[in-house]
Every structure is written in structure tokens, then in C-alpha cells.
């Protein structure tokens, strides 16, 4: 067993960083031997061909110049240009070892450069963290995804919060400005807004001019709105009387039910925002027409706003065919058995047995209440705006309170004075007291102290975080936001760094609902879920694919992570399990027995379901495909990165494309076409390590559906049978995804270390380097005896020096 693991480690190392740390002496001998045998004849002191001398080329990879030379050498070797044809040809093994050696060291050098820290490090908040912080600070929702607010943050292997990447441009400063003004205006409005309720019934939604008529007919209360697949109904309109939308939170309640064809899709309620061009709420509607449910959600609205109720199910009946069936003239729907007012020549809603034929939404009414300001949100603003206009002492105290919280540390008198000056200048310019206060507060929120997390001091080099910085690191790690009052109090008392204190706060934080932000953000970034749907599947090949399926895929994975986290299960659950988190849409996609209630729920899996763990979830299988076909190499790279933390060397430029299958030859799987990789020595050196990690999933197509035959459009004859077997470079063999996952489970120790690297990268906002390895190893070891329970890993990380040092 021990031996087995060790052999696998040769390639499943923890990224370049472990590769570089692995027995440097031996590895250097590898490269020296290779250079001597294949390179130095032309590139030494005597004969520096191409102005390149390899015997003295520096090996300090944290130095740009050296690293670039080596990168060029790797590219030439990779491209098969070097060694030249008339030299002795190195074997695939030799090439592989050398390319690995160079790639590993370049990676490690890059990590060192990215992790470099001066006396003070500044980490800009990601836009998501900005929004969370604003909400926790002032109880105001600021939608950073709205067009024109913040641009997308750059990612490093999925991580959105790596300090060295989050740069600052003038437009960031302008946007912080605009955001601060908007947010403060909402937190301290000139006139406090009054909440009101408005209900639109079916008549308001679709028969606006017929209320009297329907009342006279005696069906005003019974009539229901039918929403056909891919059709819409107004959910919110500016012209609806009694509804005056101001920026704020609103609660929607919708009474509705649905018709679901036997064995078919449930109708799907999506609330479509026409300004944002995306849905803001989703739910499958399982409730039958006799038992409508009331669906409720809260959302931030800001005028101008127009919302639709959308039945987001791929429709069998296209646009134009159903338009007038039930919504015009004197046709009205009450229920499927009452056909008195239905269009006699329209589509039938049920078969002769009364069973539904189409997935339809039946809407009774929608109700809007708001703007809502919860007491908790209101309390966040207490003491920040002076109660007496013109009272400068109160103003100073308010600004001090605000800056202390916004900057996550006490603001010094000299620092605060600048903003008091703003207040005074604004008053002198004739602004009202409130407006002048808001200007000063805008300054505090546009200050670098707010949107940069600062660690370190200008005047002394210190390795350890102080308690204020620790509170901030901890809260941004787990809550994606500013510390709460309890954390700040512990920092004030200078006790937070004490292990028992830290443990107690951690326990408290894990139990807080805000932990949701971690269980959603971390798996999304670690597993690169932003790539799901990046290449929309070809509708001809995958007609069942829809936006709700795409969303559900991501929700399965984040829901799965949350479940492992909440129940404090072992990390090995990520590799394989006998359960997962499904909603009705995914149950249909996975061909498991249909679910009887909507929403995500834990579902036990049978072997014949061919699922379990993260690797066979539709999200992962989709994001490693390209919309038309699965990509075994991409899947291999993904497994290598996400599971083992190793990024394979990049492919050389100008690779010949795979030859297309001519129409007159038998159909062949993608895998067969990829076998070219194995015959070309330069390709084989890397691909024999990558491809077997991807072939294991050939049983899943580009949207993650199970299959035993690969559907090919080109070529002759029947579709080829999938071959999902393979041999790892260490010689271990697997047959199918199940067996492959079992092999991975045997390597859980290595996976755990790789996982700690990912978690720490997320937590401390920088790339891990060789200097961090001992710590990472220790954290993983400490969790081994209890089988690497997820919350234990988080705790060990938080208690480590790695977390508490800069």
C-alpha cells in the first residue's frame, strides 16, 4: 500500500511546488545529465549557438530573466525543435522528466513572485466581498453584478481573491466613489421609505380590461393564468397601481401550481429580470393544480424594473403557436376539467385520461411587499448619523464610529481629521448637514483603508498578524466580509490570537448563517465552477439542455460541499460517495427515480446511477467539455489541478490538429483519435500522465449524461462503444469511473494535502510557495487520524502559523 502511494506521487505531486521540493539533488542530476548528453555540444562556453549557453545558465527561477530562458528552452524541446534532428534522440521518458523539471521550477518561481510581500501588503476586496461588506456594515444591498457597477475580478486557477492579481485602476476608484454615494443615500435617505403591499391577481396580469366582465360571469375569483413552456407573464410592472418601487428589498409571494406530464419535466418557475437579463429566482413547481403552493422570496429592486414570470422549460411547442390559445378574447382557464371557457380549437392540455400533456404553470396571484428594512439592518446604522443637525461633536463621534467599523480597526485622530475637514468644507459650501455628513462618509468608504485589506506596518517588519488583522483575515475567509462586533472586541482586548479564544470564535463563526458565503464561494472558486456554461452546448446535439439545468449543476456541487461541511464529513467524500444533492431537474438529467418535492435534497445513490463524489457531477463533466464533445485531456488536466494541485506543463504552440474522421471510414471515439498522443514522443511525455486521468470519464458526454456509446456525427457504421479503462503511469489499472474513483480514494492523504493548499490559497489570498510546504504538511497530518473531516481541516488551518503569519 505504502509503495503504491509513493509511485503515484511521482505525478500527482502538489503542483510544481512539491515537484521542486522533491529530492532536488536527484532532479538536478536529471537535468544535468540531459544537458550534457543532448545540449552542451552546441550550447557551451566554446560554441554558444543561438547566443545560448546552458552550462552557466542561472537556475534562480524567482528571477524573471532566468525563468524566461528556461521557458523558451522548454518550448523548443516541447515543439520537437531541440535537440535538432541530427542529434541523438532522447526517449519519451527523458523528455518528460526534463520538461517536468523545468515546468515545476517555473511554477515554483512564479509562485514565489506572486506571494512576495513588502512591509505592508494590500489586498483589494473582490467585488463579491465588497457587496458582503457593505451589507454587513450598513444593511444595504449593492448589486455588484449590475451592468456598469464593478467589472469582473481576475482569477488565478478559479480563485478570485489573489492579492497579486487584484490590481487597481482609475475606474475602480470612480466606481468605489459612485457605489459609496449610492449606498449611503440608501442607508440614510432624506425621507424614510414606507413599506406597502400590492397584490396582482390573474386578471391584473393577463385580462386587465375585463375585470367587470369576468365578475359578471362569476368567474373573477377562479380564473387562472396559464404559462406555456418558454412563455412569460408579467410579474411586476411599473404601471400596476399602488406599486411605487424605490430602491430596496422586496418580498414576493406567488400562489401557483403546475401540470407535469407523466415521466416528463416539471414546469419551472423563473423570475426574469428584463434589465439584468437574468433570472433572479428559480423553482420547479411540483404542486398539482388542486393544491397550489405559495412560493416566497426576497430580492433587491431598484427602478426602473420590469419582471416576468417565466416557464423555463424547453418547449415542445414553439413561440407563436400557443400565443392566443388562452390569453385573448373570451378564453379563460379555470382548471383542466372545466373546459367551458377554453378555445375549442386550441392545444389540448390533457390526454383522454385527464393526464397533463405539457409542463404548464398555473398562476393565481403575485404579491409584492416592500421596501423592507429589517430591524437588524436598521440597527447597523444606529449612531452613524447625528440626531441633531449641526452638532459637530456628535458628527465627530459618528464619523469615528463609522471609520472604526469600516476600516476594521480604530481610526487615528489624524486620519479622522481629514474627513471632518470634508464635512466642514461641504457645510461651508452651503450643503445641508445630512448631505455634508454623507460626503465625509463617502470619503471613508472610498479610502484605501476600506477596500484594501492591509497587513503589516510601514515602520517595522513583522511576520505575525496583529489581532485586528487576524480578525479581518478570519472573517473574510469564512464570511467573505468584515468582522462582527465580537471579533472586533476580541481584537480590542488583544486576546484573539490566544488558541482557546480563536477556537471559540471559530466555533461561533461556523455556526453563523454567514458561513453560507464560504460554503458557496470556496467550492465555486476551487473547482472553477465559473466555467460551467462558458461554452454553451450545441442545441442540436443536446436539445434538453437549458439554463435551469446549468444552474442546477452548479447548485448540486456547492450544495454537496455545504453538506460535507455542515455534517463535518471526510474529504474522501469529495472523491466518491453513495449520495449526492439533487433537485427534480437533475434527477431527470441523471435518470435517477423522480423526486416528489422541489428544491435540493440529499439523495441516496445506487451503483447503477453511476454517480457519487464531485468528479462525476454534471457541473465538472460539463466544464471540462466544449459544448459539442467531451474533452478527455481537459478532464485529465482538471483532475490533476483540482484533486492533486498539479498543473501540467502547457502544450507546445502549433500542435497539429487531430485529423478529422473522413466520412467513409468507421466511426471512432475521441479517445481513439487521441491515441496519436501516445505515438509521438514529445506529446507522449506529458499526455501519458494527463490522459488516463480523463479517459476514466468517457462514460459521460459533454453535459454529463451517462452513456455506453459515443455518438459521432462523422464516419460510417454504428456509434463506437465507450472504453473508460486506463492505466495510471504507476501501472495501476482501472476499468471505468467507479474503479478510478476507488483508486483516488486510496490516495486520500495526497488529496488532503492538495486540498489544504487550495484552502490556504483562498484563506490567505496568495499563492502557496515551497516555504509553506512544511506547514501544509503539518495541517494535513493533524487531520489524518480522524479521516480528514472538513471542519477539522478548517480549524487546523486557522490555528496554524501559516494562517496567523503574514
Amino acid at each position, binding site marked *: 500500500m505504502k509503495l503504491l502511494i509513493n509511485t503515484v506521487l511521482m505525478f500527482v505531486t502538489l503542483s510544481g511546488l512539491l515537484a521542486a521540493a522533491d529530492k532536488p539533488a536527484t532532479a538536478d542530476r536529471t537535468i544535468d545529465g540531459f544537458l550534457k548528453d543532448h545540449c552542451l555540444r552546441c550550447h557551451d562556453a566554446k560554441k554558444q549557438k543561438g547566443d545560448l549557453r546552458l552550462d552557466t545558465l542561472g537556475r534562480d527561477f524567482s528571477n524573471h530573466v532566468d525563468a524566461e530562458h528556461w521557458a523558451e528552452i522548454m*518550448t523548443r524541446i516541447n515543439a520537437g525543435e531541440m535537440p535538432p534532428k541530427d542529434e541523438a534522440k532522447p526517449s519519451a521518458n527523458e523528455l518528460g522528466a526534463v520538461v517536468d523539471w523545468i515546468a515545476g521550477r517555473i511554477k515554483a518561481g512564479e509562485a514565489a513572485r*506572486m506571494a512576495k510581500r*513588502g512591509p505592508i501588503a494590500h489586498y483589494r476586496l473582490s467585488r463579491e466581498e465588497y457587496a458582503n461588506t457593505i451589507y454587513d456594515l450598513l444593511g444595504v444591498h449593492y448589486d455588484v453584478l449590475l*451592468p456598469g457597477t464593478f467589472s469582473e475580478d481576475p482569477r488565478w486557477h478559479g480563485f478570485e481573491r489573489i492579492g497579486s492579481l487584484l490590481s487597481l*485602476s*482609475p475606474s475602480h476608484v470612480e466606481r468605489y466613489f459612485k457605489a459609496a454615494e449610492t449606498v449611503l443615500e440608501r442607508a440614510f435617505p432624506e425621507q424614510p421609505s414606507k413599506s406597502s403591499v400590492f397584490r396582482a391577481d390573474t386578471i391584473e396580469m393577463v385580462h386587465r380590461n375585463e375585470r367587470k366582465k369576468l365578475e359578471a360571469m362569476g368567474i373573477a375569483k377562479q380564473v387562472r393564468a396559464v404559462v406555456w413552456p418558454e412563455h412569460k407573464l408579467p410579474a411586476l410592472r411599473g404601471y400596476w397601481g399602488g406599486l411605487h418601487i424605490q430602491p430596496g428589498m422586496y418580498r414576493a409571494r406567488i400562489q401557483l401550481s403546475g401540470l407535469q406530464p407523466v415521466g416528463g419535466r416539471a414546469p419551472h418557475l423563473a423570475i426574469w429580470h428584463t434589465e439584468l437579463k437574468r433570472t433572479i429566482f428559480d423553482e420547479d413547481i411540483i404542486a398539482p393544480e388542486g393544491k397550489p403552493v405559495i412560493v416566497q422570496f426576497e430580492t433587491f429592486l431598484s427602478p426602473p424594473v420590469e419582471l416576468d414570470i417565466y416557464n423555463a422549460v424547453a418547449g415542445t411547442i414553439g413561440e407563436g403557436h400557443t400565443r392566443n390559445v388562452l390569453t385573448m378574447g373570451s378564453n379563460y382557464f379555470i382548471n383542466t376539467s372545466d373546459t367551458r371557457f377554453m378555445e375549442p380549437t386550441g392545444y389540448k392540455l390533457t390526454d383522454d385520461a385527464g393526464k397533463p400533456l405539457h409542463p404548464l404553470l398555473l398562476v393565481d396571484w403575485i404579491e409584492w411587499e416592500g421596501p423592507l428594512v429589517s430591524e437588524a439592518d436598521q440597527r447597523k446604522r444606529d449612531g452613524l448619523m447625528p440626531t441633531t443637525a449641526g452638532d459637530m461633536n456628535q458628527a465627530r463621534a459618528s464619523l469615528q464610529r463609522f471609520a472604526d467599523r469600516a476600516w476594521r480597526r480604530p481610526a487615528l485622530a489624524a486620519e479622522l481629521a481629514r474627513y471632518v475637514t470634508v464635512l466642514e468644507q461641504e457645510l461651508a459650501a452651503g450643503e445641508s448637514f445630512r448631505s455634508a455628513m454623507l460626503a465625509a462618509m463617502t470619503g471613508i468608504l472610498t479610502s484605501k483603508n476600506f477596500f484594501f485589506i492591509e497587513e503589516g506596518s*510601514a515602520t517595522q517588519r513583522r511576520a505575525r498578524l496583529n489581532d485586528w488583522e487576524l480578525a479581518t483575515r478570519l472573517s473574510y475567509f469564512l464570511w467573505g466580509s468584515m468582522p462582527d462586533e465580537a471579533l472586533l472586541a476580541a481584537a480590542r482586548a488583544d486576546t484573539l490570537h490566544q488558541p482557546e479564544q480563536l477556537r471559540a470564535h471559530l466555533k461561533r463563526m461556523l455556526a453563523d448563517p454567514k458561513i453560507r458565503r464560504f460554503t458557496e464561494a470556496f467550492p465555486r472558486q476551487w473547482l472553477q465552477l465559473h466555467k460551467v456554461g462558458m461554452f454553451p452546448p450545441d442545441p442540436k446535439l443536446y436539445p434538453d439542455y437549458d439554463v435551469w439545468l446549468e444552474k442546477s449543476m452548479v447548485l448540486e456541487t456547492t450544495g454537496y460541499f455545504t453538506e460535507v461541511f455542515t455534517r463535518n464529513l471526510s474529504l474522501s467524500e469529495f472523491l466518491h460517495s453513495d449520495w449526492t444533492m439533487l433537485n427534480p431537474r437533475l434527477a431527470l438529467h441523471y435518470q435517477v427515480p423522480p423526486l416528489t418535492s422541489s428544491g435540493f435534497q440529499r439523495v441516496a445513490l445506487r451503483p447503477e446511477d453511476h454517480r457519487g463524489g464531485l468528479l462525476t457531477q454534471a457541473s465538472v463533466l460539463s466544464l471540462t467539455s466544449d459544448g459539442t464533445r467531451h474533452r478527455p485531456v481537459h478532464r485529465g488536466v482538471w483532475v490533476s489541478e483540482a484533486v492533486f494541485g498539479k498543473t501540467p506543463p502547457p502544450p507546445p504552440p*502549433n500542435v*497539429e490538429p487531430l485529423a*478529422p474522421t473522413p466520412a467513409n471510414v468507421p466511426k471512432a471515439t475521441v479517445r481513439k483519435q487521441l491515441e496519436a498522443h501516445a505515438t509521438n514522443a514529445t506529446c507522449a511525455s506529458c499526455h501519458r500522465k494527463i490522459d488516463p486521468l480523463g479517459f476514466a470519464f468517457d462514460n459521460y458526454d459533454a453535459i454529463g449524461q451517462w452513456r455506453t456509446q459515443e455518438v459521432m456525427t462523422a464516419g460510417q457504421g454504428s456509434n463506437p462503444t465507450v472504453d473508460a479503462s486506463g492505466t495510471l503511469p504507476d501501472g495501476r489499472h482501472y476499468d471505468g469511473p467507479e474503479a478510478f474513483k476507488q483508486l483516488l480514494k486510496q490516495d486520500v492523504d495526497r488529496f488532503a494535502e492538495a486540498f489544504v493548499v487550495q484552502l490556504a490559497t483562498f484563506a490567505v489570498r496568495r499563492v502557496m510557495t515551497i516555504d509553506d510546504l512544511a506547514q501544509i504538511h503539518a495541517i494535513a497530518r493533524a487531520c489524518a487520524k480522524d479521516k480528514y473531516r472538513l471542519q477539522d481541516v478548517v480549524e487546523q488551518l486557522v490555528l496554524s502559523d501559516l494562517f496567523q503569519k503574514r
Partner: protein
Amino acid sequence: MNIRRQNWLLSRRHVLKGLGVALALPLLDCMRPLSGADPLKRSTGKAQRSVFIYVPNGVNTLDYQITTSGADYKMSKSLQALEKHRAVITPISGLYHPNGLGNHHNCVKIWLTGGRLGQSDRNTISVDQLIAQTTAQHTRFSSIELAAQGALSWNADGIQLPAESNAGVVFRALFEEPKGGPANQRRGLHRRGSILDAILDEARGLDGQLGREDRGRLEQYLTSVREVEVRTERADSWLDTPRPKVDAPDQQRLNRDVSQQQVGDYFRTMYDLIVLAFQADLTRVATFCTGQEGQGLAIPEINIRQDRHSLSHHNGNPDLLRQLTESDAFNVAQFAYLLERLSTVRDADGPLIDTTMALYGSGMSFGHSHGNANLPIILAGGSKLGFKHGRHLDFNAMAKFDGYDLSDAGRHYGICGRPVNEKARLSNLLLTMAQRMGIEATSFGDSISAMPEVLS
């Protein structure tokens, strides 16, 4: 009250410098002179403009490549729409960015910079922003950045400038008077100036305590806040200059949120906005990024339902190759529309095309294997800036080269992966373009010389 606070600004800057905060704040921003509010004073000198347009994922190079050099070259299949503009264009073959080779999807980021980009490297200034340093003094906007996806412009700090994708937003920013009238606007700008004072002062305090190499993010912060200050000041100085009036039909056509599903309409609207902005001399520099490598628009209106990224990874599939050519030709046809408009619309100096240089192309040539040599590049317009057109300028043919054989796809893809002519750097062209716009530079990015071949 003296509303033009230029003195206030500059004097404070001198104070900052006196304290040893002299920044890497390049030549430019704080030194851009703000001319008076008198519109007559502003239109000094003849307007010269430049526009840069990016196409992601390269092209189907087998249908795109022009194989004959010189004036009587035969237009390739993908470029047919440009036939009637022959006299004002120069297709260029063989150019490349050395730092783009093997750099995959990064090529859009360095297309206008020639910079080197790894995870820890910072980009350098893009040529449009370099040019804007001299043209900015004449116009209300120093430059405009438009994009369907991604962005092309990078400031002197190597930070990407976000681009606007909504045509209506662009229109309103350019042509609509802000609400509340000049007095109200000015009050708002002064309020902003006062807040900027406070945060700059604060950053300065810390900056003084740090060594140069330790400033890191703080330096970006200082230059960013200063740039915002300059923009605030600039907005202030233009407040009393009314914006040009746009005819009602034009307004209706341009002031709307055009869907990216209607690609032709979307592109043409963006091009119309650029032409109108040039005509009204609101800006003299524009970029339009029609997509970035990971995506690239599908074109449902001509039945191309896959994005350009998927098409470019065609794997030799004839159907995908055909669609890629159609997509290439469609994109070129929209560019031809821009040239058409520039040729029709005139200012006091004649048709805009004579005073406007346009660069169209990609940072990739053979998308399937991320080939970044022999880039598809077309230079157009700007005869009054000294450009000579009407030829296919082929840098491959100037080197040791056996000619094109498009029937041997593998061989041609090889030309697109590795430069034939090592000296044919795209940065040389960017340098020459900058020089013609009045930038006194002798190098740009990784240029090794200027490119006299494009000049008359």
C-alpha cells in the same frame, strides 16, 4: 468663486512632489493641459484619429490568407467585402508579437501593448492610450473603450481599462447633458474634489514611510486617485461647453441597448457611435473589442450558433471550418461598413477616412492550436497621416520563404505558429502608428524598428 481649479490642482501636485512622492505617474495625465472652456480654442490643429478593432480566435487562415504580394494582389475569400475599399487599405501578412507565441488566450491582452504577460507580470501601456496622451488635450473624452466582450486598453500602469458594451450607455455618456445643469454638476465635482483631497492626503502619509520597491499596491492607488482627480478636473473644465446636438433619427438609432444576438446591428451601431464621436470631435481615439478568445460572438442571423471559440477549435471539421470562414467574412463586412461610413462622413478637412487610421485584426491566426504568428492584420485610412495603401504587404515574402501552399493545411498552419520573418513585429507597426499621431517615441513595446513600409 473661480470654478476652473487648475491652479489648485497643479500647485498641490507640486507640493506632493516636493515631499518626494514623485510617482511613476508617467508624463501624461497630470500634465495634460486643460484648455479653456471656449470651444473655439479647443479645436486647434487638424483632428487626427485612430481606431483599433479586435477579432478574437484568429481566422480560418486557409480562406483568409492573401497569397500574392504588391498592388495587384487577389483579395481572399474572407476579405471580399473589402474589395471596394482597396485604395484605402493595406492587408499585412507575417506580423507577430514575440510575447504572444504560445501564450494562448492572453493574446488579446497584449494585442495593443506588445507586453509580456505571465501570472505575475504586469502589462504595459497600450498604443491607443499612448496616443491619447497627446490627443486628449483637444477633446472632451481622452478616448473611448467599447467592447462586446473583454477590453483592449491598458493604462500606463499596465492596468486594463474596462470597456462599455451597451451602445445606449455609450451614446448617453457622449451626447447627453448630465442631469441637474452645470451649476449642480460643478457642485458635485467640487464635492468629489474635496473628498479626493482627503484620501490622497491619507495615502501620502503612508507612502512617505515606504521605500520605492515596497509601495506595491499603494503606487497604483496613488496614480489611480490622481487620474480620477484629473478626470474630475477635466469634466469641470468642459462643463460650460455644450455637447453637440444629435439629430432625432440618429438619436433613435444609437441611443438604445442593441442585443448582441443581433450581431450586425450591434457592430454597426458601435461603429456609428465611433464615427459620430470622431465627427463631433468628442474624442480622437477609440478601441472596439468584438470579443475575447474564450468566447467570441455567435451570429444567429446567419445561422452560426456556436461562438467563435468553438468554431476556431474546428479540429479540421469541414462544417466548422466553413462556418468559421462565414463568421470571418461577416466580421470583415462590418469593418467594411465602418470604412464606408468614414469615407462618407466629412469634417472641415474632408472625408474622415483620410484623417483616421484604423487597425483591424487578431492576436491569433490559427485558433485551433493557438497559433500566434502570421497574424491577420489590416491597416486602413489615414492617408493625410502619411500612410500608403493599395497593396498586400507581405513580411513573409520578404524573408526566406517558399511561398504559400494552402492545399497543404499543415504546412500553412506551421507558418501561423512560428514566425517566418523574425523581424516582422506587430509592435513595429504600433510604433509607426503612434509616431504618425504625433508621439515622439523611438520604440514601443518590444519593437525593434519603425515600419516605413506602410508609409508613402
